[in-house]
């Protein structure tokens, strides 16, 4: 299914909510004069992963806070794990796990104490809470650090503990708000590996991210939001196709070869190329991926062009927004400010 475009946020139809871990219609949230969500529909089929992609202040966190019962929508309704978030908040809470944007593990408690406490607050019997804490500490390679205060953990460890804490209650639906923001690349790929395991176990996940590569790596479906509105949605492949696919990226040794290289790339991709004379690069979108790259490589080699670097790259969030809205993502932090002020 190809992504819909502007203004497709609210649907008058009310399809069956069965089979969805998250089902929301027409969510609106205002902070004073600022509208954080302007009518958002979301649906996450049970056992799948959906990523909400958007810049800072787009409304990602606001949406997650409503779905996790932390905040009430001004309009619209949402059903999570089979229960209405407004009328059955407690039933929802029994079935969800939530990791906020900043790690919320207690720094003055050890890793184990954090998990046991949250297990008990998930109403597990104490022995069961301890057993689950042990199992999760092992799963997340934290067993060596289990009895150290969380304040001594590295950023990556704290994130892992945070995620482990989210799983103590064996949630049916998992909410992850920017799970890898602020992590170094290694910690990031470690966390991705953990999330992969979860997904294969059949947990329904709604995550938010600012990174297209993260959304593509983890999610089945992507919802792009901007200024509180859904501006595109679709399965990963379809959405990416609509965004122009990958980019062939060529960097040259000698700037004099730019024209030749551009001709080769244009010939293969059949698309407009952008040339950066200063950086000696030629970039063009392609839907063919690796075969296109191989043909570009062959063409450049035939033309005798010396190549410094050649590869396939993901469009950045800025480029995605440029394609979708015709303007780059403005780092509008109105949402962040409203959250701060409240």
């Amino acid at each position, binding site marked *: 299914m190809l992504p819909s475009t502007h203004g497709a946020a609210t649907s008058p139809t009310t399809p*069956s909510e*069965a089979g969805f*871990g998250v089902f929301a219609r027409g969510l609106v949230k205002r902070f004073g004069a600022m509208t954080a969500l302007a009518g958002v529909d979301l649906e996450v089929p049970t056992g799948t992963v959906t990523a909400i992609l958007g810049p800072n202040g787009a409304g990602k966190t606001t949406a997650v806070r409503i779905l996790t019962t932390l905040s009430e929508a001004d309009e619209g309704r949402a059903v999570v794990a089979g229960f209405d978030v407004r009328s059955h908040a407690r*039933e929802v*809470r029994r079935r969800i796990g939530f990791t906020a944007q900043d790690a919320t593990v207690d720094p003055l408690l050890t890793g184990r104490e954090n998990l046991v406490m949250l297990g008990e*607050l*998930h109403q597990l019997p104490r022995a069961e809470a301890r057993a689950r804490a042990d199992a999760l500490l092992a799963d997340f390679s934290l067993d060596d650090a289990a009895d150290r205060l969380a304040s001594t953990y590295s950023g990556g460890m704290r994130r892992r503990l945070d995620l482990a804490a989210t799983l103590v209650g*064996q*949630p049916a639906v998992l909410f992850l708000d920017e799970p890898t923001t602020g992590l170094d690349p290694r910690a990031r790929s470690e966390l991705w590996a953990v999330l992969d395991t979860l997904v294969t176990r059949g947990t329904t996940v709604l995550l938010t991210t600012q990174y297209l590569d993260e959304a593509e790596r983890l999610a089945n479906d992507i919802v792009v939001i901007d200024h509180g509105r859904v501006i595109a949605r679709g399965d990963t492949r379809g959405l990416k196709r609509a965004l122009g696919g990958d980019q062939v990226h060529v960097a040259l040794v000698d700037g004099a070869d730019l024209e030749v290289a551009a001709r080769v790339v244009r010939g293969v991709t059949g698309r407009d190329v952008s040339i950066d004379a200063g950086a000696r690069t030629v970039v063009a979108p392609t839907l063919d991926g690796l075969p296109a790259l191989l043909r570009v490589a062959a063409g450049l080699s035939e033309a005798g062009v010396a190549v410094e670097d050649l590869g396939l790259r993901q469009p950045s969030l800025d480029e995605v927004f440029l394609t979708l809205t015709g303007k780059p993502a403005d780092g509008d932090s109105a949402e962040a400010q409203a959250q701060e002020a409240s």
Partner: protein
Amino acid sequence: MTATPIAPTSADHELYPSRGFLHDTWVIARRGLLHMRRQPEQLSDATIQPVMFVLLFAYVFGGAIDVPGGGEYRQFLMGGIFAQTVVFTAFGVALSLASDRKNRAIDRFRSLPIARGALLGGHALTSLLKALLPITLMSLCGLLIGWRIESSLPEAIAGYVLLTSFAFAMIWVGILLGSVIATPEGVTGIAFSLLFPITFMASTFVPTSTMPGPLRVAAEWNPVTTLADALRILFGNPNTPIAVGDPWSIAHPILYTALWIVAIVGICAPVGVRAYEKSLAK
């Protein structure tokens, strides 16, 4: 709960029944107690500060202050220090609420299936236990400098019960302050510009009889005065003798203080709980 799922999910597995308000409150309180143990410096307002005040007033100012009706100043002082310290209970509660909100730890708790009110209950319970610490420490410190309980055992117990009840009332004041004031820094500011003067405009350290007209009236109706006086009476320590023209508050300090406790809890508890919930629902 008789809620029926609108659309059952496949992963609707082992869901344990709720273990109740008291269980959840105790789990949250245990976290607070661990915080106390791991951050002993945070306890200075409840430990070092009152002990310092005991020593300062006993040895630095004490010599210059006369107790009307005779008696030793150190015996007079302890009731006042006890009263001042439990008033400051409010500060600790307000600070911990504001900090929890600031670092968003609260969000995780609120996404958990815990009993309504248990989060606040846990904070209140921790604070009450935390209030017992300075009361114990100051009693010991007082004994060291020569303070003695000269009354009967039931009277002494009544004194400690009154003190602890006042601490309980101040917890609700703290919950209200901590919910209305946005930041930990703001809480500290209010504590020093509001709570501090209130504890000094009283018979805490000096008899109210030396104060000028209007201030004296304020001090005489200040519950900190009557709490201090009530403790002196219940512990059998020297106190300004009650005279014929004294206001009702001074003539009946125990009853007057008890009425304040009831009034503070009666007003601050419901208002504080509502303010707390409002401060979170953002």
